[in-house]
């Protein structure tokens, strides 16, 4: 531990400075009153282009991403690079979708994706299913942020649970106090640090390792030497379909996550959302370069830390920094990862809390809840969510969180017909959508259950690549399980809709009008609701 003392000091100082900012954030653009979900949970819905860029970017590109994506390349090669096409596709894909969501949410005072489903399809059951799906998908994601911090602490020789608990206690305290303003303000620091570190890393490390060419050659030599058939610095005929469907499926799922929606709804107007769709890919470039840290680690001869006989691939990036950077710079890099965990963890817990408050508490327990009551419940729910995340990481094998997050990605995708397609068409019947959602989830779980992964000693839930041979096809190709599940979902939703229509089953009322989907800041109805603030 003593040889890491400089790193620990730099890490601690930066961490404390940022935490201080989190508490001060409550006074930033100070509202008259933080006691409503629009203020606490959406930062007053007044964020401009820059704040939104940092907030959404800090939200989507998490510490776990920075640690796990290079670890994926380190272990499997080209397949891990799916993260790049995924984040290129996602913005043009959701460009026209999110502006409609922004508009309808501002006309109808909606805070969560489930809120929208409730108004659009007039079905509390469907809204509840969407809300629970969001909660289940978000919880392990929060827990995974701790895995990022843990990897950094482990590399610095800091062991034990206490540092993690302290870090999350600080996070919980300032999120409780400042709401969405805290991560928005901290995101500035986090992203500046990360950009700085990566810029240095992609210039400095290759120079020390003999150039990019030799880094890729070293990676190729490593994969050629392993017996595993699926790895390599290029794709093979069997994993290309997986690469495509995983990139596309993940791109479709990204903005269905409640925390992504939270960042978007906090924008001031549609123009801010559109500008961000054009500007957010700057992070994708960063992500692509970060991914390549995995190959740099191979070229630098990094061996992941093993604990309990299992190699922890998530430590390769921190170890690379430790090996290549001077101590103080490694300390800054660790702080960047650590702070990088706090921003998304805060936003995710706020989003999860909003879901609970709006779609469970208000819908089922206290329909006449006031704004102040909603905010109070959300603040407490955000605490509960974080305590739960810490408990999951400390008490259960972290691998379990990774499995859960994998499942989360597959099930959140199942809300696509109701949320994303629902923004464009009211063709689906609520009964069809409910049947589709349930069928898609069941299909997803069955598919994931049947994926084995000998590498991590899993007979089930061993990854997202489903072998098509299990469906009786004579091929070694694999496909993203979430994608297959979504096809099942859409088929059942369509069939269910036709059956429900034929049987003249009552459909829910649509509370929206076509013009709601194009409303913008300054429109009378948008303004009216902002002023009155409540129903």
């Amino acid at each position, binding site marked *: 531990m003593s040889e890491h003392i400089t790193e620990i000091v730099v890490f601690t100082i930066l961490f404390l400075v940022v935490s201080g900012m989190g508490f001060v954030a409550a006074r930033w653009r100070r509202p008259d009153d933080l006691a409503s979900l629009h203020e606490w949970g959406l930062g007053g819905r007044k964020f401009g282009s820059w704040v939104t860029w940092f907030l959404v970017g800090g939200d989507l590109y998490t510490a776990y991403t920075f640690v796990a994506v290079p670890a994926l390349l380190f272990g499997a090669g080209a397949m891990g690079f799916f993260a790049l096409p995924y984040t290129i596709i996602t913005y*043009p894909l959701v460009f026209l979708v999110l502006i409609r969501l922004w508009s309808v949410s501002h006309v109808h005072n909606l805070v969560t994706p489930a809120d929208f489903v409730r108004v659009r399809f007039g079905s509390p059951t469907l809204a509840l299913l969407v809300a629970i799906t969001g909660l289940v998908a978000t919880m392990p994601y929060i827990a995974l942020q701790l895995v990022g911090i843990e990897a950094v602490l482990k590399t610095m020789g800091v062991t034990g649970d206490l540092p993690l608990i302290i870090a999350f206690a600080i996070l919980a305290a300032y999120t409780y106090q400042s709401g969405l303003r805290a991560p928005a303000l901290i995101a500035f620091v986090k992203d500046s640090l990360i950009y700085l570190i990566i810029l240095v890393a992609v210039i400095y490390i290759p120079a020390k390792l003999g150039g990019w060419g030799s880094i890729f050659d070293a990676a190729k030599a490593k994969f050629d030497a392993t017996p595993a058939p699926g790895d390599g610095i*290029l794709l093979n005929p069997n994993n290309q379909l997986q690469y*495509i469907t995983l990139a596309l499926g993940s791109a479709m799922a990204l903005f269905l996550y409640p925390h992504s929606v939270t960042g978007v709804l906090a924008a001031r107007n549609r123009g801010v959302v559109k500008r961000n769709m*054009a500007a957010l890919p700057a992070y994708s470039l960063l992500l*692509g370069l970060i991914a390549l840290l995995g190959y740099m680690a191979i070229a630098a001869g990094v061996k992941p830390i093993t604990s309990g006989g299992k190699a922890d691939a998530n430590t390769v990036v921190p170890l690379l920094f430790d090996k290549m950077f001077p101590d103080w710079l490694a300390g800054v890099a660790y702080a960047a990862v650590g702070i990088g965990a706090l921003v998304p963890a805060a936003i995710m817990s706020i989003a999860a809390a909003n879901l609970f408050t709006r779609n469970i508490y208000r819908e089922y327990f206290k329909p006449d809840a006031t704004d102040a009551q909603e905010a109070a419940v959300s603040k407490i729910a955000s605490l509960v969510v974080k305590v739960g995340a810490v408990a999951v990481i400390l008490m259960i094998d972290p691998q379990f969180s990774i499995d859960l997050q994998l499942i989360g990605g597959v099930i959140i995708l199942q809300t696509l017909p109701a949320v994303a397609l629902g923004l464009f068409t009211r063709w689906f019947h609520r009964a069809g959508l409910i049947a589709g959602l349930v069928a898609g989830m069941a299909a997803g779980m069955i598919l994931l259950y049947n994926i084995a992964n000998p590498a991590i000693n899993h007979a089930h839930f061993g990854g997202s690549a489903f072998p098509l041979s299990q469906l009786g096809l004579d091929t070694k190709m694999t496909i993203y399980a979430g994608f297959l599940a979504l096809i099942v979902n859409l088929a059942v939703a369509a069939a269910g809709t036709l059956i429900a229509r034929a049987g003249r089953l009552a459909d829910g009322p649509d509370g929206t009008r076509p013009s709601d989907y194009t409303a913008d800041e300054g429109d009378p109805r948008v303004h009216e609701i902002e002023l009155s603030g409540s129903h």
Partner: protein
Amino acid sequence: MTTPSSDQRPARSDRNPWNWLLLVPIVIPLITALYNADQPRLLGFPLFYWLQLAFVAVGVVCTTIVYRTGRKRGGR
């Protein structure tokens, strides 16, 4: 939820023929045949890596054009 009010603003629309341009950065990164090769290398990067990084620029350009043209057409 909301009471319908009688405001009838000039209808804003998201329709814009340039929107089709959004398909370009969605479809191109999904065609693995375009980039699944080592050669030619650029600055030591195999084609697989540098071309996919270049697709980021394609995405930015297409999305920016759609945003700019959409704004001229009366929306924001």
